[in-house]
């Protein structure tokens, strides 16, 4: 006795394969979602931050005067912590 009806199986197969193909794209979009956010984030950081970075900014110390302020102290501090955690 046959339990599996060939026509039934054939009909079902169409929807199964379509479902697979659609979800494949959704999975791909989910994977790229993270990458899109990454791209937006980097783009924003770079476009909005690049104008303020020059050699003075990198090498001068903190200051209350925004024009003279720099991040040398912060860089040194980060490096120090970094070295410490490597021991």
């Amino acid at each position, binding site marked *: 006795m046959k339990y599996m009806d060939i026509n039934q199986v054939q009909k079902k197969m169409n929807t199964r394969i379509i479902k697979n193909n659609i979800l494949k794209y959704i*999975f791909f979009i989910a994977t790229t979602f993270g990458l899109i956010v990454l791209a937006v984030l980097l783009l924003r950081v770079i476009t909005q931050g690049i104008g303020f970075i020059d050699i003075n900014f990198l090498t001068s110390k903190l200051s209350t005067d925004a024009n003279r302020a720099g991040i040398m102290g912060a860089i040194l501090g980060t490096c120090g912590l970094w070295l410490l955690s490597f021991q």
Partner: protein
Amino acid sequence: MTSNSEARKSTVSVREMIEKKKATKILSKFKEKLVPMTLFLFAMVSILTTFGIIYTLFSETVEFFKRVPITDFFTGTVLRPLSQNPEFGVLPLINGTLISSIIAMLVAGPIGLMAAVYLSEYASDRVRRVLKPLLEILAGIPTVVYGFFAFTFVTPIIRSVWPDVDATNILSPGIVMGIMIIPMVASLSEDAMSSVPKSMREGAFALGATPLESTFKVVIPAALSGIIASFILGISRAIGETMIVTIASGSSKNFTFDVTESMQTMTAYIVEVAGGDAPAGSTIYFSLYAVAMTLFVFTLLMNLLARYVSRKFREEY
């Protein structure tokens, strides 16, 4: 006769060799003991540190509960540490922590799992080798950057489609936290799924299954323990996250379930109090330890849960 004496001679020389060897052995034995000893000491350093942390947490928490009744702390819905008659209910913080973690997992869970499915079941080797490390960069971005991203980019977008949302709210940092956790869930789930033997998939394909059916009815059930563990680790990460919420959710200690409002999480409270000038010995100073202790218990429970789950759901094949 001759053979006998020869035999004796040889036994003597063997004995001598053994004696000689013993002399050198003492030194090498010492060396062999020294290495594990040093390693043990190194291990002890981290264990002792942990115990030190727990001890401090515990003793200061006890001190706090001498001043504020433990029931008030765990059932209070009002947190007003700086007011004239301060109240120390931890529920707003627990609420904020849970809500932000839930939002984060609503983002990271489905997206991370879908990415894992794509990477492990659909992508070719070449595509996977490019996409996976790229995705993992997301996990390496400093959380401060995410915090500003949430505050200056995600919040305005949300507000433009949903004007009810406050400038500082829990929704936006929750979402961004989720984005941060995606690679963790994706990568750990993908590992769990790729370690399911290829023969399982072949079995499914040989019965006429589509990749989708082999994934959801064979591979995911077989990898379930690893996938759940990745989710729980993701939740722990969300619970422990500090900067994003501090920056994007402000510091109102609302006890509410409305995600458009500002809330504070346990970690953000600790940052606020520790960063402010709470005089050592004041109640507010001790409250910091009580909250930290609560947080510690939370993450500990999560980790235990992850271990339990990954044992319990291990499918044998």
